[in-house]
């Protein structure tokens, strides 16, 4: 690439970027994204605390609770679990252990129309212990109160079970241990490592899928804007004036970089707004862990080191340049804005292929994170910008793969940019019918430009 081919790239970049940032479409979309981002965290928190708040009862409306025990291990008929004197909500509830049958008791409650009493009915079900609470429909007692009472009684039952087991706290802990299976293998270098065929978990899948989705969105948004900018130069017939100062390569590269910065900027603004909004929501609701934070599995981003961040960003940026160049090529093939949609079919086909392959790879990661298809997609230039950054961040793609993917993309970007600039140069003065792909390929072969004499 000669230096004068790139002369003026900076000016084209600045002008395109500033005009894009000043455009109403861009401002409106940023405002909409900002509003969405700012309100997401507090609204979600409100919904969550609203739901929790509904469960919380200041003082219970339950005046009396009839305990109709059918559990064989409650030898005193249920009085073992009815001491709620320490509970602020239910301390005033009067418990009465009854020998009446559950059916008879229900009938009596209905007849008396007592809306402040409930029946506590613990029994042994198929799955284990069930604590049934029955209230009179339309009475003062709410369903949430019954749920809260049931939760407390379950806790009491648990404490009672531990008490009668005669085991110490340590023994009880041992009894509560869960089992986890871990299969490792020793590499030829003698290192102990995870099983190669292990799949990713739900949280990891979420991270990789989110990155793939975000990259795809940026890619489509930025690329179509590049194509539009390229056609605008031709359709507005400014291109001939520009070409006395800059080469087509500089025009194309300047536009690609400007649109990428504008679109990535939009995304960065969005992410920053979500983070700030989340922090403020935490302060506002006086909680360290907001609902939004709770959605991100703990430790999922532990592999997000500076090196991985740089590698991932480079991969994404190079991938975006590749897709944007393809879109620019489509833009170079037409001279009128109304023809662009037709020309963009080539870009759409390639990008959809890339996206679907990336989705397939990510889905297959759940079964095995390092299968041959995943490995292929981590290196293949259409899919590597979408899969490899996420895979690297969750530590399932080796650094060597990411670096090879970067090298492949670098070479491909250079070749695509050169080809696109060549086509752009050849067709820059073409104001006639759209050029078909076969013509472009023939043109590249013959190195002959299309156009018309005047």
């Amino acid at each position, binding site marked *: 690439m000669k230096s004068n081919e790139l002369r*003026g790239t900076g000016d084209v970049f600045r002008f395109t970027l500033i005009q894009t940032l000043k455009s109403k479409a861009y401002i409106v979309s940023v405002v909409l994204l900002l509003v969405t981002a700012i309100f997401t965290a507090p609204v979600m928190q409100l919904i969550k605390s609203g739901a929790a708040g509904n469960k919380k009862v200041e003082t219970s409306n339950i005046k009396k609770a009839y305990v109709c025990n059918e559990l064989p291990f409650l030898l005193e008929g249920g009085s073992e679990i009815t001491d709620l004197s320490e509970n602020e909500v239910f301390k005033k509830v009067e418990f009465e252990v009854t020998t009446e049958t559950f059916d008879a008791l229900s009938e009596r409650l209905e007849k008396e129309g007592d809306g402040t009493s409930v029946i506590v009915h613990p029994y042994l079900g198929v799955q284990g212990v069930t604590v049934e609470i029955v209230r009179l429909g339309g009475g003062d007692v709410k369903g949430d109160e019954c749920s809260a009472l049931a939760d407390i009684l379950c806790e009491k039952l648990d404490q009672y079970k531990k008490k009668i087991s005669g085991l110490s706290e340590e023994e009880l802990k041992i009894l509560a241990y869960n089992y986890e299976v871990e299969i490792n293998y020793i590499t030829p270098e003698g290192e102990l490592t995870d099983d190669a065929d292990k799949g990713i978990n739900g949280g990891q899948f979420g991270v990789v899928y989110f990155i793939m989705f975000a990259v795809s969105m940026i890619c489509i948004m930025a690329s179509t804007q590049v194509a539009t900018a390229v056609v*605008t130069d031709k359709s507005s017939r400014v291109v001939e004036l520009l070409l006395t100062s800059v080469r087509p390569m500089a025009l194309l590269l300047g536009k690609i970089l400007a649109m990428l910065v504008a679109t990535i900027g939009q995304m960065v603004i969005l992410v920053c707004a979500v983070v700030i909004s989340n922090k403020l929501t935490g302060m506002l609701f006086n909680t360290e862990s907001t609902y939004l934070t709770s959605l991100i599995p703990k430790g999922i981003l532990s592999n997000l080191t500076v090196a991985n961040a740089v590698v991932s960003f480079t991969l994404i940026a190079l991938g975006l340049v590749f897709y944007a160049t393809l879109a620019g090529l489509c833009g170079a093939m037409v001279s009128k804005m109304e023809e662009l949609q037709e020309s963009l079919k080539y870009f759409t086909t390639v990008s959809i292929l890339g996206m679907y392959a990336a989705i397939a790879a990510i889905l297959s990661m759940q079964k095995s994170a390092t299968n041959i298809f995943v490995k292929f997609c981590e290196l293949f230039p259409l899919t590597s910008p979408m899969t490899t950054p996420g895979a690297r961040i969750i530590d399932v793609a080796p650094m060597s793969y990411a670096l090879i993917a970067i090298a492949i993309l670098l070479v491909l970007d250079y070749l695509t940019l050169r080809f696109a600039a060549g086509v752009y140069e050849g067709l820059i003065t073409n104001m006639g019918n759209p050029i078909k792909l076969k013509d472009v390929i023939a043109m590249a072969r013959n190195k002959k430009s299309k156009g*018309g004499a005047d």
Partner: protein
Amino acid sequence: MSFEVRNLKKSYGEKTVVNGLSFKMDGPGVYALLGTNGAGKTTSIRMILGMLKKDSGEVLWNGQEMEPEKLNIGYLAEERGLYPKYTLLDQLLYFAKLKGVGRTKAMEKIKYWSNRLQLDEYIFPPKNAKGRPVKSMRAEQLSKGNQQKVQLMAALLSDPEFVVLDEPMSGLDPVNTDLFKEVIRDEISKDKYVIMSSHQMPTIEEFCSDITIMNRGQVVLQGNLNEIKKSYGRVNLFVKCEQPIDELIRQAGLTVIEETPAEIQLRVSGEEQAMAFLNLLIVNKITIIRFDLREPSLHEIFVEKVGAGNEE
């Protein structure tokens, strides 16, 4: 300094659109490229400016291969336009920046040209009724003529040493045509190299010293305009008399080219035949209002050359 085009050729498949165009400008001045639509003028200009790859030939500036990006070129293209949605000021600053003109200098130039081309109200609109500044207009808000003035402005902002004007006056009203002519005259007076392409022969005659007439990619006539005209001789005689002179014209054996109420245009073989006809009029006591012996106009030369080419 000199500018030279050597044997420029361009073909699209079997069709040759420019075939061996050569010309030279040894010093500042205006060189005209003439031709019918499709003659190859714009293709030649695009090759000269490096927008279109030439099949063969050379474009030399001071004896060296010309690098358009490095030379300060002002270009008013035939297929001209502006960004419709961007403000005029923004795009003029951009065009100036691409030419390496800094913002401060560019603003000075824009103000100068805006005033000169009577575009102030569009580029620097006055404050509104509330005293607030109003943004420069967008190109889409301007008439075609005013857009053309902005395009000329864009071409001249960097004070270029080499100016290419492709059909500069097409579509302009008489007032703006005069304004453009005045600007072009000024540029010529600054010792610039100007290449002009136009269909308007009187404009070319007004500005250009050297011409090339192209037809279907071929050069059909080339050289200094005055010398070309001289080579044709003074063969056009325009006569207006008070009495009828049809009989005398017949006696003198002259050919009537055109007869209008204002004058009769005759074809003579040269000055001697014209003088003989003048004597004939005097001897017959004809009152002569007008007797004007002229060289052929560029229009006539053009029609003769291009018309003959097209009849082949």
